[in-house]
């Protein structure tokens, strides 16, 4: 076991990732990121800066594309639908309504 150390991180909502950092975190080439930003399915085309939701989204897109040979638009659609389900479930939960 390693010695226990106290470490401090940064929230990537405060210090956003740049394109190379996002690519590295997802183990893809920067081209992959560029292609998805240009297709409008990831991040914000105005600034190549990425936050928590972008990182999570990129990793989910990648998984769908790899495992289902999904095209990027289709992968994005699946994730948008899944996000909507999660959002609605979170809403139900917040309001104290059981989802059965």
């Amino acid at each position: 076991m390693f010695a226990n150390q106290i470490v401090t991180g940064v929230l990537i909502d405060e210090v956003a990732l740049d394109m190379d950092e996002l690519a590295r975190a997802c183990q893809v080439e920067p081209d992959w990121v560029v292609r998805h930003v240009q297709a409008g399915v990831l991040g914000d085309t105005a600034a190549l800066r990425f936050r928590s939701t972008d990182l999570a989204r990129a990793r989910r897109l990648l998984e769908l594309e790899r495992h289902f040979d999904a095209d990027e638009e289709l992968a994005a659609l699946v994730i948008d639908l899944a996000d909507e389900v999660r959002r609605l479930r979170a809403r139900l939960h917040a309001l104290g309504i059981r989802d059965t």
Partner: protein
Amino acid sequence: MEYKDYYATLGIDRGATADDIKKAYRKMVRKYHPDVSKHKDADAKTKEINEAYDVLGDLEKRAAYDALGRGHHAGEQFHPPPDWSEHFDFGGAGADDFFADLFAQAGRSRRGGGFQMRGDDIHAAITIDLADAYRGATRTVSLRVPKAEGPGRATMQEKTLSVNIPRGVTPGQQLRLAGQGHEGHGGAGPGDLYLEIQFAPDPRYRIEGSHVYENVPVTPWEAALGGSVAVPTPSGTVEVTIPSGSQSGRKLRLKGKGIPAATPGDLYLILDVVLPPANSDKARAIYQAMARDLAFNPRTA
């Protein structure tokens, strides 16, 4: 370590073709996808399925796994021979799984010779309590990581980190810990660790982004006549004025009393009118008096 049967995980036999494996994987992943599955252990199952497919879906990794697994059964104790990985080289297998363990144990002798590569990033989650997001906290996270032990050898080890959780974090945010990822090769630097913030379920509070919801039980007279009640909140007990004429389900918003994020969230109190039981003569008499004197029919209102 315990032997894991990836073929059994995907429900296929050892002779399966690459196409069979892909089909089986897709079927399983759809069945257990956490967004659609009703299975209680959907998350754990999905993780197992992905782990199995990461290996069996890759020709080279599958060959390595097959070379090793002949005659072994799931759950058995298992020790790979010291030199078995001579012909395979997977570097940072990444995940904290059985396969990564195997390769760490078997060593990475072929990684020497001037080859330089920054260590991979690690992705993991850390679970905190709502109180931690209000006040900030230090929480520990345990990771299984390969640790180099002399040239070309590594073992999987438990690495425990105490992580400072900044005040104001919300679910799904990612904390980046520079240099806490996998070790680099040939003198290159380590990767980073990304920790996704998750919240443990709380019996009283529910979280949506930076907003927090809480049910507040009130009596019929507090709801009807209004009044001040003491309500426990994540930032301490507050006196809340219940407006007269309130009904069950009414939401009272305490602005800025949610998670203290960059834009602070709100705290919503959902009123829950609770009727006193009519279990004594006196209580029954009061209900009967209301029935007689109020002439109230909610179905015609």
